[in-house]
């Protein structure tokens, strides 16, 4: 009968597939050999470009071949006319587009495209932006495309508002998108910077963003992308200094090299090596340039003979405007309602806790600590993180008091056990530091470098297991009782450090 169809059996099908595979392999081997031999002979010509193109179309991720192409094109540039080069560059763009269809996450193909556009005269950026749109429509989370988009936008500078709106559109399609949230944060900082400093963005937009991210977080708390963005929104811009600091003794500028004790470019503890002799009753002043180019000046008072200390204001409270605080309070209410329904939802509990801390850390301190203790049980895999938060926020509370008193001893005055040592730079002038009966592990030892003036350091009854990473300090007495440090560790520590007295 006419038109009755017969289909290949699965055996035939398999044989056919195998044959196709073998042919592909043969072609690939042959082509790679040819490319290598031509490369060896220095034959950089159109034929070489042609063979490479065929291989790349099948497998766009052989970066060696892209390197060869760039080599050839760079050499062509020396001998060919501008017009010819434009043609070559354009066909290169077509090739990368095909390759990106094969693999939209090909590092080499995206990179090649970027390279071509930097080299080609008069590139069509609009077209590139459209290409990004197309690829982000196919996969809105392809970070290669977002990365490329930032490059294109950096070149053609479209209205930032458009880019911002684009992130809104993408997030409404699917808010589980780290790249889009991140790009959004970058646009916000550009579009609506906080001119007073200290906060990420202007208040009016801050409120809107908080609402949007809360909506995402409540829709799917298990999606962490929104959390990260929320933490960024709630965060403050922390001031670090680089070495543009000036010291004046009796109004005379002291020259010398400022050194970060940890060796970073930006740090919160700097040391000046100088040859000036410091006398009593000197007038000592420090000036430094802040991140927003403002100049800060601090007068140091003589605190002990030949020891001068100057203090600027400290505040760990984020400064939010009234409307933002109102929004935070609203959201806190929502969280509390939800907690009443789902008391064991760790995400809601953490957000509640963060809100409480942001709104008024002092007023809510006890509740905050209590919540974190509960979180340690609910979310035991992150117990370490919660412990560190407890340490930080407890120390911040104590610091508010310590800082304004003229103490030269630092000891912990709260019941929670420390697991980390944040803000230690504020105690850098203390001669006696009592960190006994905490839960410090050997991991924290390097941070002790901030205790530059410490003479007596009490680390007894902690969880130290070794002394690796102990910084070079001029200690007179080190108390290590009640830890589980091995004998030989202490012996080798003694060889390296000159501590007058070690109490074990």
């Amino acid at each position, binding site marked *: 009968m006419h038109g009755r169809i017969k289909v290949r059996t699965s055996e035939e099908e398999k044989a056919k597939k195998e044959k196709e595979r073998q042919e592909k392999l043969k072609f690939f081997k042959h082509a790679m050999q040819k490319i290598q031999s031509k490369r060896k002979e220095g034959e950089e010509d159109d034929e070489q470009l042609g063979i490479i193109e065929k291989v790349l179309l099948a497998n766009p991720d052989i970066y060696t071949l892209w390197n060869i192409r760039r080599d050839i094109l760079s050499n062509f540039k020396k001998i060919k006319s501008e017009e010819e080069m434009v043609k070559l560059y354009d066909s290169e763009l077509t090739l990368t587009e095909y390759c990106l269809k094969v693999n939209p996450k090909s590092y080499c193909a995206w990179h090649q495209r970027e390279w071509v556009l930097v080299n080609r005269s008069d590139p069509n950026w609009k077209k590139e932006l459209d290409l990004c749109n197309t690829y982000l429509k196919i996969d809105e989370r392809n970070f290669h495309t977002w990365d490329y988009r930032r490059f294109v936008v950096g070149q053609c500078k479209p209205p930032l508002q458009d880019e911002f709106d684009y992130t809104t559109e993408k997030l409404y399609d699917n808010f589980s998108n780290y790249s889009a949230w991140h790009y959004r944060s970058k646009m916000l900082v550009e579009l609506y910077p906080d001119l007073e400093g200290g906060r990420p963005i202007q208040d009016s937009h801050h409120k809107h963003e908080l609402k949007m991210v809360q909506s995402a977080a*409540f829709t799917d708390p298990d999606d962490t992308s929104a959390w990260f963005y929320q933490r960024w929104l709630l965060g403050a811009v922390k001031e670090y200094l680089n070495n543009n600091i000036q010291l004046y003794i009796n109004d005379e500028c002291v020259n010398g090299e400022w050194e970060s004790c940890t060796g970073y470019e930006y740090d919160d503890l700097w040391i000046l090596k100088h040859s000036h002799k410091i006398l009593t009753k000197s007038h000592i002043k420090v000036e430094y340039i802040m991140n927003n180019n403002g100049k800060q000046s601090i007068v140091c008072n003589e605190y002990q003979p030949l020891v001068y200390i100057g203090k600027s204001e400290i505040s760990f409270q984020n400064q939010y405007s009234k409307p933002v605080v109102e929004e935070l309070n609203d959201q806190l209410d929502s969280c509390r309602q939800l907690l009443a329904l789902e008391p064991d939802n760790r995400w809601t509990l953490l957000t509640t806790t963060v809100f409480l801390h942001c709104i008024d850390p002092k007023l809510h301190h006890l509740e905050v600590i209590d919540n974190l203790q509960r979180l340690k049980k609910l979310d035991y895999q992150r117990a370490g993180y919660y412990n560190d938060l407890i340490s930080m926020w407890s120390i911040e509370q104590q610091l508010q008091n310590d800082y304004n008193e003229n103490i030269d001893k630092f000891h912990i005055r709260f019941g929670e056990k420390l697991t980390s040592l944040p803000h230690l730079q504020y105690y850098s002038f203390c001669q006696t530091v009592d960190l006994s009966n905490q839960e410090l592990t050997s991991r924290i030892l390097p941070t002790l470098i901030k205790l530059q003036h410490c003479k007596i350091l009490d680390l007894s009854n902690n969880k130290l297991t070794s002394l690796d990473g102990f910084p070079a300090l001029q200690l007179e007495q080190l108390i290590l009782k009640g830890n589980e440090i091995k004998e030989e560790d202490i012996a080798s520590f003694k060889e390296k450090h000159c501590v007058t007295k070690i109490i074990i």
Partner: protein
Amino acid sequence: MDDDLPTDFQVIVVGTGMVESIVAAACSRIGKNVLHLDSSDHYGGLWASYNFEGLQKFIKEINSDPNRQLQVYNLIEKWYIDKDSPQEETKQETEEEKTEPPKKIWSQADFASEYRKFNIDMTPKLLFSRGPLVELLISSNIARYAEFRCVTRVLTWLNDKLNPVPCSRADVFATEAVSIVEKRMLMKMLTSIVGYNEEEMDNEFKDWTDKSFKDYLTHKGLTPNLIHYVLYAIAGGSDAMPCLEGVRECKKFLMSLGRYGNTPFLWPMYGSGELPQGFCRLCAVFGGVYCLNRPIDSVETKTGDEGKEIVVIGSKSKNLNCDHLVIGINECPKDLLSSEPSESSDISKAIFITNGTIMPSEKEPLTLLRFPPLDEGDNPVTVLEVGPATGSCPKGLFAVYFITNKVKDAESDLMKYAEKIFDMTGDQTKAGDKPTCLWSLFYNVKDVSAGVRDGVETVHVCAGPDAGLDFDRAVIQSEQIFKKICPGEEFLPRAPDPEDIVFEDDVTHGPEFRGDEGDKE
């Protein structure tokens, strides 16, 4: 011409409705010799889509001879607009408002002149993106004969107005209609339903088997708005819906999200009538013989040689023999059906042609609207609104389908719902927020399922259209019939792609293609 028709077949299928067509395709696909007949001149039977002229013919047929089509009754057609457009007036208006071209004023004559741009469904249905029909279309490779569009939104009637239903994660995130706490509650409920596993004995819903879904949602502390969304819009239920049925319906809805678009549904381009035709086409590709306009006069069974039962069909003074007869219920002779009282639940349907969408949106919408019952004793009403992009109607118009389980008759069951969302005055010049209804058709459809007379094993009766939103029942029934005819055979295995087909006989091959990549060494 009739003499050309062979007389002996393994399977004869009478009627080209959905179930009949799927069975025909499935039998032909595994090599059965199939004859497929239909008494009318088009495919689909009550599952067909008509252009406006075809629809007029259908209406005329039923009204002139109500006995001819026993399944459709209470048919009422209404025009709300003039026969001809008042030409002068419109011209003047155009001159006055050159900046804003006025909305077209439609007349009956315009419908007639654009009749070919209509594809009106007698059985409008949606496909769940992960429902059995989509899976079947994919696995059998019949999907290539059809095109689909995604439903763009799900609406409901809440607080006396239309409301979009946040049903996907993206919707819940974007909506401003529910508070943040409600978002969490809604997502939690939906996630818990998705996790429901009937086999698991100790599941969340085990204590709710004898209670209503509404009670469950209330117990879980959902706000009235959320209960409305979940119960009426997502589960498509009513207050009395049993809990487990509600959970099952919701789960089906949710599992179909995110496959093709932002809603769980697909709409067949050019109408649902395309789908039975797709199956018929596959049947024909595998050798099925087609004959439309071929009514049958009698069906008899007799015992042939070797004691095999043979079905003999009399048609146009010719006897057609087969091992199995598959027949649509409306084509089936009464004496063949079981005398036991058949189950019957009738459907009320209505079709409206309007001059705009019920809720304007940026791009042309394709809408599923679920009305909760407005009055006690009513059933929930399903509304489907499709526009020109689906090939259902000319530019500027929308076709809107209403479906509910019958209480009284189609018009009294559905008119009050239509009045909520349409302007029924026929005034096309008013700039109200409701679209104007230009034309309507109300009708009831009998949904009868009946068995065959005792002792007849080789005749299989197919049910007509049901009130369900998807084609589930048709797919399940056709698979059951196929299993009876061809026990142990695979139901619609994947049809080969054209490039995998080998032509056995006298195909002359062109010259062999030679690549330039020869080994030179």
